[in-house]
């Protein structure tokens, strides 16, 4: 184990994309292959083998490990099996995984032959993978069906070669647009990019807080400018922390760094380190972090996947392997917590926006995380929904001791609940203090004043003129009390 003297100099590089991206890309391409397989016209009994062509493309695009390549081949075999017109389709179960493995060999071997370009590789892999797959398939057929040798040699083999030639043409034809498309979506990793491993470092946080963000500078993907610069902060147990700042200031990036999505999902380069309960985020995985930190994104609808309310809570727990009896009892607790009791059987589409968001929070709470991170939770809620939401999370914070980190620019609504506020401008933390101190700082330094609650601004102006009391106005009732006390002619009623 190597010790790190200065954590701010520690660099971590990661390719964009989750670890399952190869599945997404291959499944998508194989689906296209299956459709083409079904509709492709056959000329004199010959048609390209679209399924082989698409998995060749998938393997070349995602560069999977050999084990993953066999998996892709197996899925391809099952697809062919179900759509095959052959007398003995089971041969595919052997031919496709072996051919896919061979294709992966070709793709990984490309590194040694630098002169082989992407297009040439597609032609070569398209041809030879098809020859190998066809050879295995017809040979099995020959032995099992006891076919005459002449049929095998002069009927089947030429057909295999002709189909392979067809595939040598169609594989690059699929590869080019697919590469273009997936590259645009950020799905194709740059092969020159180096990945860093922190497995050999002995990383210890400087603070024993729940979350400790230490000198983090972060560049998204291949971006040249940093999204956040030398950000340091701690989240203590029981905190209700608000992170605010103008659009595009990096507040969401800080939030993503606390759940490990930065850098492990978005890729790019991170300097410094984030520790969650003492664990360095680069030495663990996003699913493991999720056991400690629950995250609800601004687009909470995208986290809801099931049909009904109770299934959604169950889904979150099933994924972590809880036993069914525990899940049933927990659904009850969680739905009570988020105020959705009685709606267990309701379909998710029948819920209002605010209810769907509370469900998303419930699904995260189901596995008992100590910290809850909400990214712009009120951006699609109306004022009533906003105050309900903050009442709920305020209660979770006060009564159940859940630590909260909220990114928001609606400061009036969160004001009564938060104990700390951080102002972020241009990727840097400019103020980290109590809620009222941060508001005062923003007001006095004229920073991001558009976000200041109007009541607070009114109080500050009147106070400056000498006409307001000492306690800032958090809500209208405070202000009324203050004003009524100040106005001598007013009869208190």
């Amino acid at each position, binding site marked *: 184990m190597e010790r790190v003297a200065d954590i701010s100099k520690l660099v971590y590089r990661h390719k964009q994309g989750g670890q399952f991206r190869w599945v997404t890309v291959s499944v998508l391409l194989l689906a296209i292959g299956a459709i083409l397989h079904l509709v492709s016209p056959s000329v004199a009994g010959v048609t390209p083998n679209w399924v082989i062509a698409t998995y060749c493309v998938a393997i070349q695009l995602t560069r999977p490990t050999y084990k993953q390549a066999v998996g892709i081949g197996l899925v391809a075999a099952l697809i062919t099996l179900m759509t095959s017109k052959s007398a003995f389709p089971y041969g595919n179960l052997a031919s496709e995984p072996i051919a896919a493995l061979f294709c992966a060999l070709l793709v990984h071997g490309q590194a040694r032959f630098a002169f082989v370009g992407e297009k040439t590789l597609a032609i070569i892999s398209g041809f030879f993978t098809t020859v190998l797959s066809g050879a295995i398939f017809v040979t099995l057929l020959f032995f099992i069906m006891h076919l005459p040798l002449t049929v095998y040699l002069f009927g089947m083999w030429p057909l295999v070669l002709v189909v392979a030639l067809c595939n040598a043409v169609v594989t690059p034809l699929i590869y080019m647009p697919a590469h273009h498309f997936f590259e645009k979506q950020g799905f194709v990793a740059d092969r020159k990019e180096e990945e860093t491993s922190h497995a050999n470092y002995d990383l210890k946080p400087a603070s024993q807080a729940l979350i400790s963000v230490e000198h983090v500078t972060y560049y998204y993907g291949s971006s040249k400018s940093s999204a956040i610069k030398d950000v340091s902060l701690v989240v203590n147990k029981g905190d209700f922390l608000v992170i605010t700042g103008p659009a595009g200031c990096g507040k969401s990036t800080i939030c993503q760094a606390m759940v490990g999505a930065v850098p492990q999902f978005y890729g790019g380069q991170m300097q410094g380190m984030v520790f969650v309960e003492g664990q360095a985020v680069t030495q663990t995985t996003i699913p493991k972090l999720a056991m400690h930190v629950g995250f609800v994104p601004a687009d909470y609808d995208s986290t809801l996947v099931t049909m009904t309310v109770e299934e959604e809570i169950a889904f979150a727990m099933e994924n972590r392997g809880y036993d069914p009896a525990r899940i049933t009892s927990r659904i009850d607790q969680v739905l009570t917590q988020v105020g959705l009791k009685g709606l267990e059987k309701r379909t998710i589409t029948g819920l209002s926006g605010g209810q769907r968001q509370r469900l998303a929070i419930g699904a995260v709470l189901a596995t008992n995380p100590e910290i809850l991170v909400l990214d712009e939770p009120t951006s699609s809620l109306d004022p009533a929904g906003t105050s309900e939401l903050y009442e709920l999370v305020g209660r979770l914070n006060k009564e159940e001791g859940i630590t909260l980190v909220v990114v928001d620019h609606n400061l009036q609504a969160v004001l009564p609940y938060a104990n700390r506020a951080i102002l972020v401008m241009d990727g840097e933390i400019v103020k980290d203090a109590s809620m009222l101190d941060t508001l005062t700082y923003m007001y006095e330094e004229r920073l991001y004043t*558009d976000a200041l609650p109007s009541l607070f601004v009114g109080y500050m102006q*009147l106070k400056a003129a000498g006409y307001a009391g000492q306690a800032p106005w958090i809500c209208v009732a405070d202000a009324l009390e203050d004003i009524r006390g100040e106005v001598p002619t007013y009869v208190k009623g």
Partner: protein
Amino acid sequence: MLRVSDVAFGYVPEQTLFKDVSFTIESGEFLAVGGRNGCGKTTITRLLVGLETPRTGRIFYNDTDITGWTPAKRSQYIGYVFQQPDRQMFRPTVAQEVAFGPEQQGYSRAEVKEITAQALERVRLSDKADAYPPLLHRGEKQRVAIASALAMQSEILILDEPTSGQDGTETKELLGLLQSLRKDGLAIVLITHDMEIIASQCSRVLVMGNQTKAFDGSPEELFTKRDDLEALGLERPACVSLSMAVPSLGYCASMEEFTKRMITYKQQGGR
């Protein structure tokens, strides 16, 4: 300019969402539409643009009955900015998106270019003419939708909750733009939940509630005279509550106005 007369509507035959709704919209007005969730705020504006047909009642534009007109035909007069403006954009660049309307009206290529450039200039998006609409911020997308309406020479602009989820700066910019369009004679119809915006920006409020039009008048009247605000899903804005607590201070439409008057009031010895 636009007159709605005794309109009733419901999405399913057994249920009436609202009935006996009559009101007018004049040019240069800044009309807020408020009310509880599900009271028909958005629906009433969908009737105006012809996305829904009223069960009974008529809609007139300058005394022409337009109840049977298609949304496409009405779009010459009425522009609509959806709550999610992404859902109304389908062309590859901002300029082409804005050009769609005038192209359909049969303008020549040069005219379309001129109209588009002017519309983008008015919403201050000229530098984004070649941008891909889905990659813009929500505030920018809204301005593209507004430019599309301007390119059609719409006289009424309807916006469905344009400020929800936006930060203070974006909201301020949008309201500034709407006020300048209103000065040019457009009628602005704003569906909103934001009481501070209703009080400080709008010349008139239409509140939907109790299955009909529950209120139609000035924000001052709404916030100072009505005692059923909560039942209607509304709330008195802080500035109004505070100004009402100080006798003889008068109605304050915004917090700035309140603090300014309060300071003067105090300087004059509380009188």
